[in-house]
């Protein structure tokens, strides 16, 4: 949205809270929901990309080096990547980042 959700007055909302700006969901940083975050150990990682494939929130990205990392703005800390990693390269660590 053109401004943060906590700054809109009720008179400014469209009827039925219709959202007319495309892609505005990306403004909502759902990453602050998490209590644990994934950490990659590149010494063990084989760059298979299963973490990237399984992430339900598209919050894993591939770096130029070919290794993977988490986008903590959107990662909710579900741990699926760590669970699926075939080499145990991903560890869930307490804290948001």
């Amino acid at each position, binding site marked *: 949205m053109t401004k943060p*959700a*906590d700054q809109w007055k*009720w008179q400014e*909302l469209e*009827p*039925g*809270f*219709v*959202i007319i700006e*495309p892609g505005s969901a990306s403004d909502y940083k759902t990453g602050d929901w998490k209590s644990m975050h994934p950490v990659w150990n590149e010494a063990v990682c084989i760059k298979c990309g299963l973490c990237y494939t399984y992430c339900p929130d598209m919050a894993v990205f591939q770096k130029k080096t070919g290794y993977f990392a988490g986008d903590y703005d959107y990662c909710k800390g579900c741990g699926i990547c760590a669970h699926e990693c075939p080499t145990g390269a991903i560890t869930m660590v307490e804290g948001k980042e």
Partner: protein
Amino acid sequence: MTQAARKKIGIEVSLAVSDAVKQCDADVISAYPITPQTHIVEHLAELVANGELDAEFIPVESEHSAMSVCAGSSAAGARTFTATASQGLALMAEIVYCVSAMRLPVVMVVANRSLNSPLSIWNDHGDVMMVRDSGWVQIFVENGQEAYDHIFWSFRVGEDPRVLHPVMLNMDGFIVTHTIEPIEYWSDEMVKKFLPPFRPKYRLHPDNPVTMGAFGPPEIFTECKMAQEQALLAARPIIDKAWDELYQICGRRYLPVEKYRADDAKTLFLTMGSIGETAKVAVDEMREKGQEIGLVSLRLWRPFPFEEIKDAVKNAETLIVIDRALVFGGVGGPVASEVKAALFSEKKRPKVVNFIAGLASRDVQPDDFRQMVEKARAKVAAGKEDEYEIYGVRG
């Protein structure tokens, strides 16, 4: 003013309602059959199948789906109609709330019927009171002509760009829906004059994508609800204007709160729905015997017409509110609760006596109104007017 008197035809009210929906040129009808609403959508299915109405008739596997289809079609900009009752309304309740919050002007007839259990197909207002707070514009009609006229009114009010609210048209199951009544039809020219085309501000279309029914986190949910309620309250002048124009077109005057021999009445009945017709007969009979009795009929249930109610009852000593639904563990019937709340801050107000009557079509005849007056007087004399009574219950 009114057009030359038009010919009345004898027809089952459900079929007249369907014909009105056809005259409104509805685009989508989605429904699941449930007594006593069935004849309405059955006839609409016939009209579509016969090519008399160019609309999509979408049969579904449940009422939850029926209202979901209505939400989608209205969001796409289609004039949308459905009808239901009782258990069906219960099953669709989740989407009933979504449709109003998304400001989609679906029109729905509720052929009022009790809620199970025990299983009852008969008439009372138990079903609609379940969705009383759903944010729809809600009205009650007393007879077939009112039902027919209010189909046009419902689309007109709901689709007004300043309103954009769904409208629930309540008519008593069987008592109104299945009765053959003389009904004066509108000409198509009258409909065209009264009901402009539906032009929503936003609709689902690939050329101009929008998001409807979005996620509303705590930071904005309160503002969304404030906007929804303010929009419903702001609909009142448009609701009234639509009744004014309906009067100009067909000569029948409808009001949010209607009075019958009420102005000098010391004792007033207050009813909602078809029971008001019987109440008028009872009032006439009691008036002939010199009693100062009158009737107030509530037509607009939501948004509730607080000022009109206060004004209509202000000179009465006793107000007998007849509810057709029970609020378990509450303070009586839903209408009485609302009326008492409306009067609470008034310096001069009548004693309010509440009867719950006519559950599951238990007959309420003119003599029952006379008995209610006697009972009300005794209650007021004993200072027990606050004790609501389920009228006629054995035990």
